[in-house]
Every structure is written in C-alpha cells, then in structure tokens.
C-alpha cells in the first residue's frame, strides 16, 4: 500500500477511513447521535471480524467459535468491575491473557485436526465457554451483568463519553488493520497463507506448520478479546448470549460479505452487516429471514464479497487503460 491510492478500491477505502475519522463531528453536525452508537458497535465488531479474517481468510482455519473470545474479553471487564476493580490496564491485561491462554489450550487440541473436525471443535469449545458463564450464578448467569463504569485509563486516554470511546474503538480498529497488514506480508504471514493452500508442501519446505497456525490462532483470539473488552465498555452490559454460536456464525457471515483474505474486507463486511441489520430490523421483525436467504444466495451465486466486487472494478479499469 503506497501513500497515494492507486485504484478504485483504494480510493474507496481511503475515503471510508477519512469519514470514519471525522464521524463524531459529522453526526453531531447532522444531530444524529444515535448513528455514532451504531458506528461504534460496528467498529467494535469490525475488530472481531478482522481478527477472524486472519485465521479464516488468510489461514483457512474456519473457526465457528470466535464469539467466545468476544465474551472472554467482555467478562474480563465485567467480572473485575463486579468487584469494583475498574483499572483499565488490568482489564486489558486480563482480556489478552485469558483469551490467549484459552486459545493456546483449545487451539492446541483443535489444530491437531482438519476441516470438518476443526469447525465442530471450535464451535464446541465456544459452547463450553457459553455454558460456563451461563452456570455462574454469581455473575448473573443468563441475566448477564451490568457494568456501571468504564475501564479507567489516564486522563488523556479516558474512555468516558461517547466521542472518547468512539476514538478508542476507531484507533484500535486502525491498529488492527495495520497489524494484520504487516503480519500477512511478513514471513509469518507467508507461512500461514502457504499452509492454507498446501500444508504438506509447507512441511516439506521445513515449516512446522502446526506451531505457526497455533501462534496465528492465539494472536487472532487476543485481538478478538480486545473487541470484547470494548464491547463490555460500550454496552455496559454483558451476558452469555454474546458467546452463543449464532454470534460466531454472524462473524463468519461478516467476513464473507466483506471478502475473505483482504485487508479491508472485514471492515466493509461488518459495516454492511450492521447497516443491513439496522435497516432491515426497522422494516420487519422477520429480518432474519432476509439474512438467511442472503447467506444462501451468497454461497450459491456470489463470489468474493464486496471487496471482490470492488476489485472487479479495478480490473475493468486496468483493462480499459
């Protein structure tokens, strides 16, 4: 990526980032504070989707349990807050630590398997997390837990107030994009992408693919827990429902509409999903039906998601030049 956008898609993405950076002022000017809420939630989800895209899109590891890490991140804010511990650094360290550890253990088991097994096992482990939180009466079980104050950070980086929190989210989202972009183009990323397409070959080249994939899985989980930590702060309420496998399914859906294995795909996919969800649910209570039909149609007829369509524009333009 150079500094000057060189294609239709790059221009679109640059414009999008600019709009996102100015969004709080834009919405204030439009007198639509609700949109900032919507966008905050969208960008939080985008971080989770970006992290999922790392293993799913680039690594070919179809995890159907990624929402577990959102949940873990959120409970790492909620449970300390329940004991009146609001130190943000503590929340952050807990979220990264617990999710990383959980990913290391479950990933070590799941990654010994392939394909269908991997999908089902990641789903089962996330369901396990779901039931654990569901059974913890102390922390509200299925009623969830209210978080009364946001994680506390030094004054200049405080999360208090909708705009401050939005910039927290926006900057972490930007960092995620940047991190993933570096990662996939570095040596590590090459091994991950190579293993997706041809694992035996990568082993024959001397790579212990299992270790690299496990590291990738852990990185993805930790990044996703950041989304959970932000979500806990944003919503002020957490419940096991955040972890149910329907949530994990939605995350995959967002990766797919955006276009797998592209840097900006997850961001676009998530925003499209959130806008659609908001728009459709305003029209009809049966909006899940439309989502379902879209999913089926996307698989049977669509290819490449929104990023793919934008890239098609690029290619057309190149042909015309």
């Amino acid at each position, binding site marked *: 990526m150079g500094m000057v956008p060189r294609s239709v898609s790059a221009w679109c993405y640059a414009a999008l980032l600019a709009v996102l950076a100015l969004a709080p002022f834009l919405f204030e000017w439009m007198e639509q504070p609700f949109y900032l809420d919507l966008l905050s939630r969208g960008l939080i989800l985008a971080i989770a989707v970006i992290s999922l895209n790392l293993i799913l899109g680039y690594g070919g590891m179809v995890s159907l349990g990624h929402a577990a890490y959102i949940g873990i991140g959120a409970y790492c804010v909620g449970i300390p807050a329940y004991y009146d511990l609001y130190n943000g650094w503590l929340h952050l360290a807990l979220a990264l630590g617990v999710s990383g550890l959980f990913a290391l253990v479950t990933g070590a088991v799941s990654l010994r398997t392939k394909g269908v097994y991997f999908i089902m096992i990641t789903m089962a482990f996330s369901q396990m997390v779901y039931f654990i939180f569901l059974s913890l009466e102390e922390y509200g079980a299925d009623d969830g837990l209210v978080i009364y104050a946001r994680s506390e950070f030094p004054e200049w980086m405080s999360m208090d107030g909708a705009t401050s929190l939005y910039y927290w989210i926006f900057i972490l989202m930007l960092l995620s994009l940047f991190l993933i972009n*570096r*990662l996939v*183009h*570095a*040596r*590590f*990323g*090459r*091994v991950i*992408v*190579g293993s997706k*397409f*041809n694992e*035996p*070959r*990568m*082993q*024959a*080249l*001397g*790579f*212990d*693919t299992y270790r*690299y994939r496990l*590291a990738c899985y852990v990185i993805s989980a930790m990044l996703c827990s950041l989304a959970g930590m932000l979500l806990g702060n944003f919503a002020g309420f957490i419940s096991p429902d955040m972890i149910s496998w329907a949530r994990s399914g939605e995350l995959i859906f967002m990766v797919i509409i955006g276009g797998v294995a592209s840097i900006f795909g997850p961001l676009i996919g998530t925003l499209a999903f959130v806008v659609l969800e908001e728009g459709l649910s305003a029209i009809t209570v049966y909006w899940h039906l439309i989502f379902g039909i879209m999913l089926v149609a996307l698989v049977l007829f669509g290819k490449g998601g929104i990023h793919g369509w934008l890239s098609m524009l690029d290619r057309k333009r190149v042909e015309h030049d």
Partner: protein
Amino acid sequence: MTEHLLQVSSLNKHFGGIYATDDVNLAVEQGKIHAIIGPNGAGKTTLLAQLSGQIKPDSGDIEFGGKSIIHYSMARRAREGLARSFQITSVVMPMTLLQNVMLAVQGTGGHSFRFWAPVSDDREMRDAAMASLAEVGLDDRADRVAANVSHGEQRQLEVAMALAMKPRMLLLDEPMAGMGKEEGAMMVEILNRLRGDKTILLVEHDMDAVFSLADKLSVLVDGHIIATDTVEAIRNNLEVQRAYLGDSHA
C-alpha cells in the same frame, strides 16, 4: 570406501497384508544421481514418502549425513537438508512463482516467527529465489501466478523450490511426470547441470531420461530392491529384464 550421504537399512512398511516396502537397503553416494526404477505399484512413492518423513516406516533405519533421522518430522528432515519434490505437482497455486520459491528460501533461514518486515522488501531472499528460478530457466516468468503457468513449468517450479532450500540432497519424485518431449529434455538438462554439485535420489518412469542421468540404478519390484548397479550392468541384468524391462520393452 566411498562416502554415503543417505543410508537406508532394512526398511519395512506394510499396509494390511501388502508389503509396500520390503526390507529395503539403499546407499546413495555423495554427489551422485541415484535413480530408482520399477513397475507401477512397486512402492517407489511409498519409499520416497518414508525417506521424506511423510509416512512412518514399520521398522528399519534411515541415516542421513551419518545420523539417524528416522524419528524426525517431515519439516525437521527438510531443515536438515533433505528436500523433496512431489509426484503430483504440489506448489502454492495462488502465489506467484517467485513467492513460491521465496517460501522455500524462507524455510532455510531460521524460524519464521517474524511478524513485521514485509517479505517483498527482503532483497536477500528475493535474490536467492531468483537465482533458483534462473537455475531452472523460469526467471523470466517470476511474477506469473503458479496456477496460470503450464504443467511443465509447474514441474520446473517444483525443482526450483527444492533447490532453493539449499539441500544436501534432493528427493525427486517423477520430475518429468506428464511432461511433453521438449519439457522433458529441458528437465534432463537442468538435472544434468546439478550433477556433482547435488546428491539426487530420482524416481522416474522415463527410461531414456533415467539411463542418461543416473550414475547408479536400483530396481524396486513389489517393495523389494532386486538389484543395484551401474546403468550398463542393469541393462544387461537378466533378472531385471525379466522382472521389469521385459514387460515394457518387449
């Protein structure tokens, strides 16, 4: 006494009742091209898979450079300098030829837990990869995507990747499989250039290619090596002719 880089002793592997590898003993001299021939289903690929670590043998030992590698994983053996190419083309299809070979170079350069520096900026790796591509004559197509080049070029890419690993020994599984006459001749030329420089264990169906390349030949029939000798001697070996050449050259 000559120095043997690879020494296989009493290797056995059976699937159910079938002996795919039956008490195989094999010694490959440093710097030589050693070919394994044998009828279809003789167990050539199974043998190669055990050498490279893809399949575990039931018993026996494999020594490489004087130490036993029998318990090493495929990746570990590759890092020790035992590079293999695959019979069925096995490259990373969506990547370019250069990216494929760079992966092979990367495999030789220590661990890849490097998360930050873009590979494409790594001049050293790029130059090493280009050199390997040049060795097989693909340097002018470095930026083509592997899926979009011809079958013969993919086979050449296989060899370039194996070379880029800077191996002490190459295990080549039918490098000429599915190639046309011209492509085949080119591959023979490439391998000929490596003679003396690299130790090569070659499994190949194309008899003309084998006879023109190999310093030594082993004949594998039903998982068992029935003869190991020079090309001339094998040609004149009656047992071999009966078991093998008799069928196809009759």
